[in-house]
């Protein structure tokens, strides 16, 4: 699949790398070249520096032929705007946006977008672990989604 990832912070870089490892054709866009240092050295997708809301940057990234797009910048407004145009203007079949500030989640929902809140998910998970007080050591793997409980 052709996949565009917009925003190359920690989340963006990890998503892009995981997709690349699965064999997808990944293009990562960020307005700051330094952000691409978040990508592992063996990442072989495309990286593009550019102003992410401008039409020529999105077209050059191949948004017209993209199968999926993830908007994961640290701005909720920018992610929502990107998600909306990806769906409405460029008809990208699968669009996911990141909710950065949990208080702004309603904004993405108003646009009817698939939204992921890493902060809320992380906080909920931590709360679960703290309250369940599991016996034994908790080992985290990957980005924290996998938890392995070791029998004591």
């Amino acid at each position, binding site marked *: 699949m052709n996949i565009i990832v917009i925003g190359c912070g920690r989340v963006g870089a990890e998503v892009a790398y995981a997709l690349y490892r699965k064999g997808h054709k990944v293009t990562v866009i960020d307005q700051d070249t330094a952000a691409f240092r978040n990508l592992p050295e063996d990442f072989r997708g495309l990286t593009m520096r550019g*102003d992410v*809301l*401008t*039409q020529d940057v999105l077209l050059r990234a191949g948004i017209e032929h993209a199968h999926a797009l993830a908007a994961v910048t640290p*701005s*909720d*407004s*920018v992610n*929502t*705007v990107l998600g*909306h*145009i990806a769906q*409405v*203007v460029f008809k990208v079949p699968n669009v996911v946006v990141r909710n950065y500030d949990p*208080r*702004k989640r*309603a*904004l993405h929902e*108003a*646009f009817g977008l698939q939204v992921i809140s890493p902060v809320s998910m992380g906080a909920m998970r931590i709360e679960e672990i703290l309250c369940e007080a599991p016996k034994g050591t908790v080992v985290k793997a990957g980005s924290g989604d996998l938890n392995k409980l070791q029998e004591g």
Partner: protein
Amino acid sequence: MFVIIAGGGRTGAQLAFYLIAQKHKVHLIEDRADVLARIHQELPTEAIYQGDPTSPHMLELAGVRECQVLAACTTVDADNLVLCYLGRDRYQVPRTIARINNPRNAWLFDKKFHVDVAINQADMMAKLIAEEMSLGDMMTLVKLRKGEVALVEEKISPQAPAVGKMVRDLELPANCTLAAIIRKDEVLAVRGETVLQAGDEVLAVVASRQQEALELLLGRPNGDNHAAPHSAVKP
């Protein structure tokens, strides 16, 4: 009229100031402490709502359900787009106006985000400056009816076919009316016998598709001012 202004920077605050002077009801939303300190000196306290302008809760507090106009004047284009969309989609605001900060984002400011009117400050300034530099280029002042009709201004070039002709003898395009002539800082009413002179500034209302025909009449004979001499050379 009841207007909600999101963003109290120079543009938003100045707009609020004008509207309040004209006895309109204005609620301005702003969350930056330094900006708030300034606008508290310029505007009445009851007009200022302290909080994040893009938060639905804040918009509701400011009365978004009752306002007639939402003016999105923040310095962040994505925020202005989101504001107009929320304003119409969730709160049925009758009229939305948005400020464009980066002209390259202008393509987003239309019905995609329920923007009724987009104000492109940088673009307007650039065109005004370009106008001051050129003689014989038509400038669009306002577009009406979603761009079908324009109010334009053209300074008559000394080589224009219209120079020395009476208005009644001009072969104006069908959907075009001359509204006024400005000659040496004086506004002249347009009459059939008014003779046009080089340097006159003509204000005209014209169908956008006929703008070019009008320009041929008032501008330089070869209307193609921008054709570079070398562009005819084939490689």
